[in-house]
């Protein structure tokens, strides 16, 4: 009896979590689970234009909901991932992608940081190589120098 009640509560809890876990809640999903999964992966790549730093997968904004529906519609119509994304890019520009594409306008964005890191590493390397070179090489003392050292040490001992 107790076991049964516990099981029922657990089932209720799991069901509740499942509802809360998705921002979409009661949205109509695609009948084909594989297509729905693809649509949801695409949702994660699309920026919510209202909230700007959330994907439409995470956002509760009305426009995000509409765009989720548009992506589902494109997927259901047989679009590939790229075609579905291109559909939105044509309307909202590259900005709608959370991961900006590599093109002429984003070259600095993509290549700037690695370039600066590379330049810094090269400069640091040059610094160390140079500083090592400036350390005078060790040469054994000549016999004259040895005699001088012995002389000085001898003076010290006497003094």
């Amino acid at each position, binding site marked *: 009896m107790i076991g049964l009640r516990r099981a029922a509560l657990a089932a209720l809890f799991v069901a509740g979590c499942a509802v809360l876990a998705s921002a979409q809640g009661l949205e109509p999903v695609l009948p084909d689970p594989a297509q729905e999964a693809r649509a949801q992966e695409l949702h994660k790549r699309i920026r919510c*234009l*209202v909230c*700007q730093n959330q994907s439409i997968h995470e956002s509760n904004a009305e*426009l995000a909901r*509409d*765009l989720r529906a*548009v992506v589902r519609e494109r997927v259901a119509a047989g679009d590939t991932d790229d075609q579905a994304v291109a559909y939105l890019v044509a*309307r909202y*520009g590259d*900005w709608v992608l959370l991961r900006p594409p590599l093109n002429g306008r984003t070259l600095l964005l993509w290549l700037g940081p690695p370039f600066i890191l590379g330049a810094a590493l090269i400069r640091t390397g040059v610094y160390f190589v140079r500083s090592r070179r400036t350390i005078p090489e060790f040469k054994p003392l000549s016999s004259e120098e040895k005699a001088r050292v012995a002389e000085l040490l001898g003076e010290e001992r006497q003094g």
Partner: protein
Amino acid sequence: MRPALVVPVALFAVVAVALAVGLGLKPREIPSALIGQPVPAFALDPVENFGPGLSNEDLRGQVTIVNVFASWCVPCRAEHQLWVDVAKTGLPIFGLNYKDTPANASAWLAQLGNPYQRTGADRQGRVGIDFGVYGVPETFVIDHNGIIQLKFIGPVDRVALETQILPKVRALQALVQPAPAR
């Protein structure tokens, strides 16, 4: 001057200027992907009692303004009187009523005045998405050939009207001859 001293200072200056410029940009104003593109194909019924309806065919042959509005949009209310004033000059302004209920949209236009020669009721917001609308109000200037030439995001005030929108309209009116129909 030794380069070891000049180079870091110069680098710092470049970065500082770039960041200062970046701070002044408005991240809310996303550049439209549709500038220079033809208006999307659409055909909408009018807002009840404020017809005729609106389609992409109506956006050819003259320079037009398409204003995206909704009764639930507070900034739309702020800019509305300006459009009523502009409409009196004879410039064709068309209203795209975005995700609104027919009753609310009609009541809104009845109360505040109707500057629109045509209206289109986009109840599902799909035409809005085709126009790249992400927040109302938005305003488009469209040339003789139905090409989107300017997008203004947010409520238009008198300064924006006089310095951005109307100069664009006048330039297009002066510039373009209607292209032969394809």
